[in-house]
């Protein structure tokens, strides 16, 4: 029988409703899966971005503090760490900014303290006196270093102080604060912080990052005699 126009029209009748429904639902399944994957990866990417931001912020501040501690021996044989330093408040003398390489750098009395998650630095300029009995300005120049900072452990210290004892490091007590005797023999300061990102585009408990570093306040290795003392800035 020859192909008629009617028969041809019947051939091009298209898809049935069932076929269309099945096709669409399969497409939906695939697209849903894909969307979930993309959303998950976006979350992961955002989490990493915030962590990187937190690390960067924290690292910059930590490096600043460490560099200041490294320029703390402004005069030989002084004790740069000052009494009344605590686990959340570091008091020390260091060379004023830009004077690290000077022959007799101008000292600055600095207090770095953590309060309500905000790390601030107060610099008291030297007004006179000679080492180690300088006199300091009454009013500090205070800057906010970083916010959203917490100790590694709840109510724990962010600053820990060490002296040299019998050939090794010995932790000094900061309860209630570093005594004048202990401050005079502090040769290492360890800083440990937990920093949260300044912005939180994604709610994520793991976005904060802990950073730490230590600064040694000794210029030479200790004596071969392990019972000898190793005071700072020697």
């Amino acid at each position: 029988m020859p192909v008629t126009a009617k028969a041809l029209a019947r051939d091009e009748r298209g898809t049935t409703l069932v076929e269309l429904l099945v096709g669409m639902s399969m497409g939906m399944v695939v697209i849903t899966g894909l969307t979930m994957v993309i959303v998950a990866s976006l979350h992961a990417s955002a989490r990493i971005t915030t962590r990187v931001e937190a690390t960067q912020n924290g690292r910059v501040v930590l490096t600043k503090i460490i560099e200041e501690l490294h320029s703390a021996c402004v005069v030989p044989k002084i004790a740069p760490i000052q009494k009344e330093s605590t686990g959340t408040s570091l008091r020390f003398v260091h060379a004023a900014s830009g004077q690290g390489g000077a022959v007799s750098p101008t000292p600055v009395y600095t207090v770095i303290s953590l309060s309500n998650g905000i790390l601030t630095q107060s610099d008291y300029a030297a007004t006179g006196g000679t080492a180690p009995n300088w006199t300091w300005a009454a009013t500090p120049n205070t800057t906010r270093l970083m916010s959203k900072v917490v100790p590694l452990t709840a109510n724990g210290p962010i600053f820990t102080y060490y002296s040299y004892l019998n050939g090794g490091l010995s932790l000094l007590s900061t309860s209630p604060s570093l005594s004048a005797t202990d401050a005079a023999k502090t040769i290492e300061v360890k800083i440990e912080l937990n920093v949260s990102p300044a912005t939180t585009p994604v709610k994520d408990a793991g976005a904060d990052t802990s950073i730490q570093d230590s600064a040694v306040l000794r210029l030479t290795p200790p004596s071969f005699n392990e019972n000898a003392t190793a005071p700072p800035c020697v």
Partner: protein
Amino acid sequence: MRNDPARNAAENQAGFVMIEVLVSALVVVIVAGAVLSLITATTRSAAQERLRATAYAAAQEDQARLRTMRLSSLSRLNPPQKTLVTLDGTEYTVESTGVFVNNSTGTDSSCTSEGSAADYVRIASKVTWQGSREPVVLRSIVSPSNGSLDPNHGTLLITATNSLGEPLSGVGISATGAGTFSGSTDSTGCANFSDLPAGNYTMTTSATGFVNADAQFSPWTTTVGAVAGSSTPVSVMYGLPGRVKATFKYRVGSSSEYRQASADSVVVYNALMTKGAESFGSPGGTRSTTVEAYPLFPFKEADTVYAGYCEANKAEGAARTTVIVPSNGMIETPEIQLPALNLNVTKSGSPASGARVTITDQNCKVGSTNVKRVYSTNSSGNPINPTTLIPEAGLPWGTYEVCASSGGRHKTETNISVKNLTSGTNLSIAIPTSGSGTSGECP
């Protein structure tokens, strides 16, 4: 109706939509998979970078810790001290190393910089964590200031090499004396013990399978001295023992004929042996066509090998040979020619068969007894090996006392020099049948 071609064509195309959807879904899944793996890789590398940054901080902190340590403690951080640090929930392994470094070369205070004291300590902190591809390594130096090193302490630089002067790594070292130290040689064959109390030490070194110049297996003990304020180089040389298999021949009369000879012992000598020549075999015991000398130190220079047991047997000419002992191998030497003693034993004017012949080396003793070799004679009156019955004329280079006995009578000839490689030493002994002092067999 079923044969309507147009309708059939339409029906044939009816199932295609499903297949198209399936294929396109597959394509989408493949593309999504590729994108997903890309995202995973990026995330992973970002995570690695974060771990790296933390590891770097841990390394920096370890460097600070090392800077507060005494130099003597620092220089003992070899092999490294390992500590575990947990930061942000990840466990990091920190390896702290301290090595005395020589200023002129900038390298580890190796044993090649003999006599020059170590100048400063290089401290290194290597941090690794699970899944770390490249460890984070921070290095720095600590220079000794006045008073940081004990003026009454010194340094020992121990070099272990093989006979070719190549470094031997992993040679175990331990010592007691003015202080104690232990360790092993590194890949350059060097072990550096700094800050040791000055004085003498009894050092024990060990390397499994190796021998020293005197062919003794480990452990070896030597006395070394550390001098206050300076570095003392100590060289030790060990090698895998070699083996030499010596064979022997003697010349028949002055003819061009050589016969296989037997010997019971050989001496191997090298000028570098600290305890003199070494003897192998059983002097006066079973004679054999080959004598093996083992263990021998594989000296670079050739060893001298000759038959016998004593320095007095030190032969000349073809009676000794030189061989380069292979390391951890065996060498068969060229034959050693033994000078011949052409002995003819007679009794009552005819060859004495079955006579006892003893040939005693007058200048070679084992303990307090001179080396004595025992023979029998064949029907021609010539000495033969009592066991193998093979005629034997070759003897180690030396001066001998020769005794022949038969039927309760003996005769001894002394000061028989057996040192002629060209024609041998001819000796005839006629065993007497009577006479005072002739009774009894040879000793």
